[in-house]
């Protein structure tokens, strides 16, 4: 318990994120659908997640390893923290901001003015990642 509290303290106080560490409120006001979220995570054209992250997706052969494995991510991070990192991870990593259209350079015409995922899709992904507790 004490260890958990220290961990929480480090996460909030010692945060290196340009943006806040956590974004507790749902982008849509409702909970996402974990099944949809999983489909988005493993979709290489939509979520793009497994290009960089590995995870508990035994059916997916070609996963990345330049970002942390998603196994157990729901135990390591709160839903608010997951949401913040997907929306805009700030300076903590090179991970693209999935819900931002400002401050980008030379975006290909087909993607100009568009976020990588919609608010609903991000909520679905958050709901799914939160289930990855082992």
């Amino acid at each position, binding site marked *: 318990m004490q260890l958990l509290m220290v961990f929480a303290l480090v996460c909030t106080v010692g945060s290196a994120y340009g943006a806040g560490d956590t974004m507790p409120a749902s982008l849509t006001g409702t909970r996402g659908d974990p099944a949809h979220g999983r489909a988005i995570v493993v979709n290489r054209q939509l979520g793009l997640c497994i*290009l960089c992250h590995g995870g508990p997706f035994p059916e997916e052969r*070609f996963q*990345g390893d*330049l970002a942390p494995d998603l196994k157990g991510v729901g135990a390591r991070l709160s839903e608010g923290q997951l949401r913040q990192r997907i929306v805009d991870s700030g300076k903590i990593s090179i991970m*693209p901001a999935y819900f931002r259209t400002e401050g*980008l*350079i030379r975006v290909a*015409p087909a*993607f100009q003015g*568009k976020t990588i995922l919609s608010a609903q899709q991000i909520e679905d992904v958050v709901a799914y990642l939160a289930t990855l507790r082992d």
Partner: protein
Amino acid sequence: MLALPASADEARRSGYDFMSRATRAMQDEDAANTGMLWVKDGEALWNGKAGGANRACADCHGDAVASMKGVATRYPAFDARMRRPVSLEQRINLCRTEKQKATPLAHEGPDLLALSAYIGMQSRGMPIAIVMDENTKPFLEAGRETFNRRQGQLNLSCAQCHEDNWGRKLAGNPITQAHPTGYPLYRLEWQGVGSLQRRLRNCLVGTRTQAYAYGAPEFVDLELFLMWRANGMTLETPAVRP
């Protein structure tokens, strides 16, 4: 000439070093290297008369095996009249329009790829040797800036993958150090030979960045920076890559 730090030099690895044994074997054996078909086509083009001048490359330059030896290790190279570096493909087209009085060959078309593969082949095994003088340096710096600039919807720079994360896997494939040691080269994914600029476009499309046009100054500057960064590494043209 600007020297690369020794530490970077020791760590440098060609894309070849990241390949499977089977793909390496394909490059190592000329009879198995599909890129050699383009080289053969290039040899025929080198010796064929073209344009209003009805002149072949060989009519001025003679036997490419002797006259083109080492040339590809120095491109992109500064051109005094263009007042900027030109790629090997652009040099071929300058020769075509000015000396042969022929129409320029299309970028990424079979003839320009064949000729550049044939010319590149004459430098196979030689160290890349971009000359960095005062004229060239501003273009090198422009290329370096592009290399380090986060771009596109995914907001990634070349350096974030190819310097900070080389050796790790992107979608199951190792990320290389982005040393252009073997262009033009045969890529299994393309089922054909392509230029360095085609490969750069692949990365730009992947990061959802608006690509530059073939031959655009930004592309040549980036090509110049990457080749200079690979100075001293062995040219493998025509290389094979997955």
